[in-house]
């Protein structure tokens, strides 16, 4: 997650001080990725070192302000234009867990899948309830351009929906994996192969395809 570019985007709307940036970052993203003030100041000092922000005096209450520079604006513009990097996807604990569960002795992989599906659907229900509230807020809000509240509501809705689509993808992948496993074990039974307690059966389908995994 790019705190750096998030802060630049907020600073483009005018000079701000550290804890103000933190508050605005969180109200945009609904505190989904909480920031601490320390992270904000560390990032600001790196941005300053790189010439993307400069100290911008103090506000009336004496808070030291930061302002974006032309270099910072250019960096921000490029960030919006550039697709997010997908070359090194973050480690996914669930994918690793299922990969390890395949053929693991004493592990009921369908039970692993169902336990996860339960938790995933539960999270989706919670997100969806929050989303229903966010939708009401957005629909009662006004113009996005000059209405900070409406902009925050819309941004929060987008983030919530991203969480919903992500959990949905996980649920679909679980369904898919389960039906694949069921089908393969049915095929194996019909072929009168030994009981499925054997370690890592049916490797022809799955493991070699993953051989090119990066380490």
């Amino acid at each position, binding site marked *: 997650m790019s705190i750096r570019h998030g802060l630049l985007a907020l600073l483009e709307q005018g000079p701000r001080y550290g804890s103000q940036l933190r508050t605005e970052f969180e109200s945009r993203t609904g*505190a989904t990725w909480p920031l601490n003030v320390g992270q904000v100041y560390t990032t600001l000092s790196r941005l300053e070192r790189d010439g993307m922000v400069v100290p911008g005096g103090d506000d009336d209450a004496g808070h030291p302000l930061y302002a974006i520079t032309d270099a910072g604006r250019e960096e921000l513009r490029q960030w919006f234009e550039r697709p997010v990097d997908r070359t090194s996807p973050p480690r996914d604990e669930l994918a690793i867990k299922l990969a390890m569960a395949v053929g693991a002795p004493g592990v009921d992989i369908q039970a692993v899948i*169902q336990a996860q*599906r*339960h938790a*995933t*659907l*539960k999270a*989706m*229900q*919670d*997100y*969806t*309830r*929050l989303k*229903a*509230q966010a*939708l009401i807020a957005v629909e009662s809000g006004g113009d996005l351009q000059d209405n900070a509240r409406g902009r925050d509501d819309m941004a929060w809705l987008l983030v919530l929906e991203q969480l*919903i*689509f992500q*959990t*949905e993808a996980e*649920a*679909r992948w679980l*369904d898919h994996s*389960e*039906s694949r496993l069921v089908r393969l074990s049915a095929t194996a039974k019909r072929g009168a192969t030994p009981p499925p307690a054997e370690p890592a059966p049916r490797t022809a389908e799955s493991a070699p395809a993953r051989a090119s995994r990066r380490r």
Partner: protein
Amino acid sequence: MSDQSRQPVLQLEQLTRVHGSGATEVHALRGVNLSVFPGELVAVMGPSGSGKSTLLTIAGGLDNPTSGKVVVEGTDITQVTRKELAALRRRSIGYVFQDYNLIPALTAAENVALPRELDGTSARKARVSALAALEEMGLSHLADRFPDEMSGGQQQRVAIARALVGDRRLVLADEPTGALDSETGESVLALLRSRCDAGAAGILVTHEPRFAAWADRVVFLRDGSVVDETIRTDAESLLAGSGTGTGGQAGAK
């Protein structure tokens, strides 16, 4: 939730359905128990062949269980005459299908009025309650349109109005979003949700997790049995970080 004291709108008890006999016997449902209370939307999920459609058709009185009870608003519909069942279906049970099933020659208002008219209500009174149902769901502007003058999402919303016209409180929805794009499907779900919030009881059969997530409970069917069930928590618990802990039993394994 204070549901315990209230009567369920729908109660399925030890529901079993066997198709065929002998060597070709197929157990579509194996002792399913499920209650749906007023104000509740329950999603039923499961792979194809898990029994979810069978469950819905039996709950709606369109098919008979091999054994078990189907209690709708206090009446076991497996124990009534054919005529009584037809009356119960007109008065108490609304069905929503994937392909809307509105009657093409009738306007939206006439479609919604139809169940009441069939039940012997005068045409004028039936129209009044149809218009009221449409208005309550924000669909008044569609009243005089024919199905082919409406989008899929609009037709499905009218179908929900028809399912819940008059005193009907039970809506059974079979893949209602199946023919709709993502955002339209969602608006249909939002309407279903708001009708349940207003006191209806609903069962939603779907294979789309994103739509199931609008429900209060998600029931997982496998090979005709309920294998798992999510339990509702408060909307705020995610943000506040304080779970409600309404008892953690998660269905029989």
